């Protein structure tokens, strides 16, 4: 309910005030993305900081999801997509020929817009990542990871008695938290979330926002959202995208209170979008 409290005014970025800048986790330089002839991302430069929640906002179709997918090379699975430019994770080019996207995705996890648990048990959903990446040596360790991940996703209390039941039998909000637990279980460094709350009610949304704030302690989180309030509440940095360009990027507080670009201003005041 707390989440609903300040929907009418956009003022404070939610949590802890920013201290000095964290170190840069992901650096994008001159990134262009093409879907066939469609130039979806145009020359984007951005430095995404570690232990920070960065929000991508912008009108529909402006390329937020596209850019997010570049960060863990999910665009590789789209045949017609072509990515140019450099994206560095801890200083290493993730589009280097020697990089196997499978290994990259173990370090850069992703949560999707629609909850997509595997049609397997809750336990198996969470244990899947650790299993395929060989993170544990025995069952006990795996049990520990599953429990820790479910706790992180604020799902443990609801799930602990039904670990053997199918993950698809949960409510939408629970499923999305399960997907977050599944992503967290792989122990990634970066967590990408594409509109993780768009299918959820305000209560589940509030839970997930709280969760995102906690995840910031350990991860670099990038979240795409259509809700300005949400961006203001959970993020410390915000990037505004428009027609494939990144128009403005900076501290969330600054973007929402004193945007430099006209387009940003009209978007956050509701004139574009």
């Amino acid at each position, binding site marked *: 309910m707390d989440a609903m409290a300040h929907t009418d005014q956009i003022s404070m970025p939610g949590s802890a005030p920013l201290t000095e800048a964290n170190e840069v986790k992901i650096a994008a330089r001159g990134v262009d993305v093409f879907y066939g002839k469609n130039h979806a991302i145009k020359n984007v430069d951005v430095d995404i900081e570690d232990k920070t929640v960065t929000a991508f906002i912008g009108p529909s179709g402006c390329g937020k999801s596209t850019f997010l997918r570049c960060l863990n090379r*999910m665009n590789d699975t789209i045949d017609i997509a072509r990515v140019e430019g450099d994206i560095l994770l801890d200083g290493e080019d993730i589009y280097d020929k020697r990089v196997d996207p*499978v290994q990259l*995705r173990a370090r850069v996890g*992703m949560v999707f817009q629609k909850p997509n648990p595997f049609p397997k048990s809750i336990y198996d959903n969470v244990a899947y990542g650790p299993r395929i990446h060989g993170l544990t040596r025995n069952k006990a360790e795996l049990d520990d990871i599953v429990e820790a991940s479910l706790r992180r996703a604020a799902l443990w209390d609801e799930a602990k008695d039904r670990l053997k039941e*199918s993950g698809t039998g949960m409510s939408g909000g629970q499923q999305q938290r399960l997907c977050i637990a*599944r992503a967290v279980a792989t122990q990634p460094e970066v967590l990408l979330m594409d509109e993780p709350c768009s299918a959820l009610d305000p209560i589940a949304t509030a839970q997930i926002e709280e969760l995102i704030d906690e995840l910031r302690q350990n991860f670099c989180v990038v979240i795409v959202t259509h809700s300005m309030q949400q961006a203001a509440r959970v993020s410390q940095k915000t990037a505004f995208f428009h027609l494939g360009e990144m128009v403005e990027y900076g501290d969330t507080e600054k973007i929402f209170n004193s945007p430099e670009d006209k387009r940003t201003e009209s978007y956050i005041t509701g004139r574009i979008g």
Partner: protein
Amino acid sequence: MSDTTVPVASQVGHRSLLEPDALLKKRRRKESWFKMLGLGAVMTGLFFLVVLIASIVYNGIPAFTQTYVTVPVTLPADKLDKTGNRNASEMRKVSTFGYRPLIEQALIDTLADQGISSPFEDGGDLADLLSDGAAADVRERVLRNTDLVGKTVEFDLLASSRIDGYYKGRVDRVSVERGMVLTPAHLDVADALHERGLIERRFNLEFITGADASDNRPEQAGVGVSLLGSLFMILVVVALAVPIGVAAAVYLEEFAPQNRFTDLIEVNISNLAAVPSIVFGILGLAAFIQFANLPQSAPLVGGLVLTLMSLPQIIIPARAALKAVPPSIRQAALGIGASRNQMVFQHVLPLAMPGILTGVIISLAQALGETAPLLLIGMVGYIASNYPEGFLDGFVSPNSALPAQIYEWSKRADPAFYERAWGGIIVLLVFMLAVNILAVVLRRRFERRW
């Protein structure tokens, strides 16, 4: 309250809800017409189905019973076992010609014992009541149990197909008179034996387990061997077509690059699905028998031909089932760092399995009922006259298949074979039902794992 009268529909200007307007009436009429038509179509279909099943059962059920004549046959040692040491391999020297007179004598004796008068003095004429294979049956049983020699043993001998037909209503006195073999006097004798319970119609397991018999012994023919032929072919199809088909579907759908070459393959598979089955038969003849020198009439070759035929039927629905797996599951797997291989085999394939199995079931049922291509590679019905000698031999020894056996019988002149063709169809349908039930059970298993 008093001045608020409820307005009547006509007063307010719109029509009453209580009477439908003309347009609506017309729409409703169309709807009920369509309902009637649909119902009519379904009923017509049902009617023909009922007629079909009724006629199959009516025509086919008699094939499952057979008429037997019970006679005590004396088995003299001096004729059957000259050396006297009951050695079966030596007794094999006595052919069916040695046994025939014994049966003839047995019939004469039985008639005398029962006080049945007959115009036949010659036992040979009397033996026309029996199947041509009766002597061979007696011989078989004696060779299997040599202790019978020297005794008088009661045998249930197959009646000839005409006598059998007489009790099944297929043959009557008029047609017997016109025929060459039996006379109405034979029927008198048979009736007398029937009265005394010595001629009886009973369930005939031999029809289900037996081999095909030659043209003049329809009463001995059974579907057992050709059923085995069908079974061995299905084993080949299951072992080859299912894994190859599913693997091809997975490769084409999940791994193959999108280019001209894969497009070409795709078009070809779709076209293959529409190729008439007899074309596969001639292909099998050329490729497997003439070129690869595999044995003719072998279920192995039949299975290979049916495999070729089934592949497109398996691949096309399998691809559709794979395509139907929601993309969100693929993203989930990839997003967590699964390799493409892991994504396919741990998530996509299990989810597509019920759909894939449905295609497999349908293609197997189709393969099971296929006749034309088998005729081309020599798996004609009359070949199914010997049991294979073992499991492996079952794949290579000449055999037929159930539908080819049915076709063969339907061609033969004797109406007794016609009856057996119908009976064979019952067996075929039951066999198919069994295979389908098995497949459905398997599919359920797969569904429950998720």
